[in-house]
């Protein structure tokens, strides 16, 4: 593809959260996730999946927009986690993102929770 990757449009932050006996990986997405930054998003998620966490929670509360490129990256991460016996959960999508997850039926594949704490409780 020929375009400038937009580094400012999407911010990702990653944390390992100690939660009782079972720590989980929390990836927070803030901004807009689209085709111009889906490669960067893929690198972030691939790196976390490679650490083989039991649970990977993606906090969508700060995400104003998500296109199908970003969705595909999340679906790939979900598939990889599934293969290695882990679980991906999505937390607190805003309305446009929640609608996108419903339209594509991605919410049938990946559980969507109202909050990170609900997601971590499983």
């Amino acid at each position: 593809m020929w375009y400038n990757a937009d580094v400012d449009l999407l911010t990702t932050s990653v944390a390992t959260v100690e939660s009782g006996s079972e720590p989980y990986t929390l990836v927070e997405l803030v901004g807009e996730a689209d085709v111009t930054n889906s490669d960067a998003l893929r690198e972030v998620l691939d790196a976390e999946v490679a650490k083989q966490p039991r649970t990977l929670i993606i906090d969508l509360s700060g995400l104003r927009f998500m296109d199908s490129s970003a969705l595909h990256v999340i679906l790939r991460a979900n598939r990889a986690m599934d293969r290695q016996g882990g679980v991906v959960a999505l937390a607190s999508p805003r309305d446009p993102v929640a609608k996108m997850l419903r339209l594509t039926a991605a919410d049938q594949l990946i559980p969507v929770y109202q909050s990170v704490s609900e997601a971590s409780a499983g």
Partner: protein
Amino acid sequence: MARSSAHFPEPSSRGLPLPSPTNGAMYHTYRSDLSQVRALVLQQAQEAGLAEGRANDLVLAVSEVAANTLRHTHSSGTLAIWHDAIEVVCEIHDEGKISDPEVGRHRPAPDATGGHGLWIVRQVCDLVELTSDANGTTVRMHMTLRPPGTRN
């Protein structure tokens, strides 16, 4: 509130050219900055009186089509947006070529990691017209301001 475009005549599917945008259309050329494209569509849709949820649907549809410009061409694309009392229309034109005018009519498998873009566009818009020839591809997305049976 997406309705199937099957209820509408789609002359463009038979390869006829689309009529020109109406006077007063706003034009914007983009290459990399889809965020700006989305902001423009949202602003224009809201000014036209499209309800928030449907304005967001139109933003998603236009962004998906504009993303194809980045994926499949090496040149810029053009957004035209206009409205009248009945509808808001967004048109994306680029140098890409779509060989199958029926693309996006079937739902991809949920775990498919590709092919959702035009399917989403057809789901959220009231009417989608698509033409593609040697001059490039034009996708015109219509959103009715007050769909029948709703108070918008």
